[in-house]
């Protein structure tokens, strides 16, 4: 562990671009982050901010063409995943790092039995025989709290509800007890009561297996109780990175403040209209020279539309991409 400074995953200056008819889309443009063993990282951002692409890059699941990881290091336990031959990446995928996706309705193969889909992972990576894999599949379904797993294991995905399917996805992802679990908006497609159950489940299994988790979401409420630290992404860039508590207590970026303000607070704002950040995320194929958020920012000044903002270090673990990071940080401290 110590040979990589305790980091299980270390991403440095990752850039993933897509070639489109509209020009080059810089979906992820120079992001860096670290994740320690057992730690949970939240990645927050609006649709199109690059949070999914960043993590698909880590798994080397970017469809190529049109996508391409242009530069950067993805060090997973000291192995540079980006430079690894794809056959060696496959030995890590599903075994040491696993992923669950946003839409459980389409992420399971509708043509294959649940048992088949669960078994093939352990047969591949753990060398299970059919019988072992079948037993293990039932065991995993029991772990994700699917009732009557001995029966349900022989069912097809369409016989499961959305929440149940996401549980199956989680069971599948955790089959080989991976060191890293990437959960890409695992609750977005589910209704609210199920959301809480799924998050609790992930949390419990993470503690049981000691898995490091990257939780991608656009919902700050989701990451608040789950994560150790948070990255806020916008237009392919990291806008703010901080420990969870600090980010919520004293954000140093106007965008983060906007996101925090958009979380409805039923206790205090009863009857008040919900806040939303004005405007839409920019077209990442044609970014302006200045700050990509300037147009929507209530604090923007002349410099914001002209010069790209610096990545300001507030303290050891807190960074913010803003011309006025320190001022914003100081101002939100007083609120």
């Amino acid at each position: 562990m110590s040979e990589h400074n305790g980091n299980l995953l270390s991403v440095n200056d990752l850039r993933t671009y897509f070639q489109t008819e509209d020009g080059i889309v810089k979906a992820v443009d120079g992001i860096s982050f670290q994740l320690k063993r057992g730690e949970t990282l939240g990645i927050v951002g609006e649709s199109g901010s690059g949070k999914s692409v960043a993590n698909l890059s880590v798994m080397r699941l970017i469809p190529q063409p049109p996508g391409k990881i242009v530069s950067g290091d993805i060090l997973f336990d000291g192995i540079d995943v980006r430079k690894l031959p794809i056959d060696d990446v496959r030995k890590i995928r599903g075994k040491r790092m696993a992923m669950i996706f946003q839409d459980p309705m389409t992420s399971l193969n509708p043509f294959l039995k649940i048992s088949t889909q669960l078994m093939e992972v352990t047969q591949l990576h753990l060398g299970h025989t059919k019988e072992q894999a079948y037993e293990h599949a039932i065991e995993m379904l029991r772990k994700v709290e699917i009732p009557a797993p001995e029966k349900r294991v022989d069912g097809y995905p369409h016989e499961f509800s959305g929440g149940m399917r996401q549980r199956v996805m989680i069971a599948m992802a955790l089959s080989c007890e991976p060191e890293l679990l990437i959960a890409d908006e695992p609750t977005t497609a589910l209704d609210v009561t199920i959301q809480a159950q799924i998050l609790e489940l992930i949390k419990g299994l993470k503690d049981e297996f000691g898995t490091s988790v990257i939780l991608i979401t656009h919902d700050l409420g989701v990451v608040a109780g789950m994560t150790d630290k948070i990255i806020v992404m916008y237009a392919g860039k990291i806008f703010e990175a901080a420990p969870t508590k600090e980010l919520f207590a004293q954000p140093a970026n106007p965008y983060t403040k906007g996101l925090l303000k958009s979380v409805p607070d039923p206790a205090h704002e009863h009857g008040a209209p919900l806040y939303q950040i004005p405007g839409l995320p920019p077209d990442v194929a044609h970014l302006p020279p200045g700050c990509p958020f300037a147009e929507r920012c209530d604090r923007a000044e002349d410099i914001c539309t002209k010069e790209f903002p610096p990545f300001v270090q507030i303290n050891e673990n807190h960074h913010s991409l803003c011309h006025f990071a320190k001022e914003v940080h100081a101002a939100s401290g007083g609120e």
Partner: protein
Amino acid sequence: MLKFILKRILIIVPMALLVVTVTWVLIRVAPGNFYSTERNLPAAIEENIKKKYGLDQPWYVQYGTMMGNILRLDFGDSLKYQGQSVNEIIARHFPYSATLGLLAYLLALAIGLFAGIVAALKQNSAFDYGTMAAAMLGLSVPNFVLGPILVLFFSLYLYWLPPARWGGPLYLIMPVVTLAAIYAAYIARLTRAGMLEVMRSDYIRTARAKGLNERTVLLKHGLRGGIVPVVSFTGPALASLLAGTVVVEKVFAIPGLGNIFIQSVLNRDEPLILGIVAFLSILIMIANLAVDISYGFLDPRIRYE
């Protein structure tokens, strides 16, 4: 499932009778009849012919007699081929068409699926472009052009294959290839499109995220979803391959059912026309039923009711 199949089989009978009725009306509405020639027949002779074949009866009596016979599966004797029953004629000529059609069907499936899958797997490669160009050619060249070209080259130039007629396996090669070409081309394009569509789907990404190799991802996770459109196509394709091989039968002088069918229409040979129409319509409905049943094996979400 059993109930579904039974229901579908039961519906075949009234459907076939409907097809026969429409055909009968069309034959009657069209001008001319089986005994008409360039010269007018003497009135007395015409009277006798009409009497012999029951044509002097009112139309509803004629229709009733015809339907009664058909319900007893007795299509009567051909008017042109004296002394031969329609059933005999179909039994004699259908095996040629069936052999030809079935072989062409299997060949088209084998070539089409293989080419389509590989083309999808290696999208935008030389193989992909080559296959799709060949498929385009296969779709565009009608079989009455392809057949003679093959004959010209392999029979008259290379002397490798017999140019026509029915004999050993060698005789089958060119007609089967000619017949299969367009279907193989179509299946290849459908397979490629279906596979490309499926390989973009979320569950394929899941399969890749598990660390499965591309081969497993494609064959185990992609194939079943990818060939669903092909299956929908192959039902009608099988039916028309078994029945409608007229052109190829003509080009290669094969005594199949398609040839007889055309002749019967030209001869206004009513019993034979009705017999072949009934036979082929039942065949097509059975082929479609077979396809619908095979969907269930392909896709577990499909329920039969």
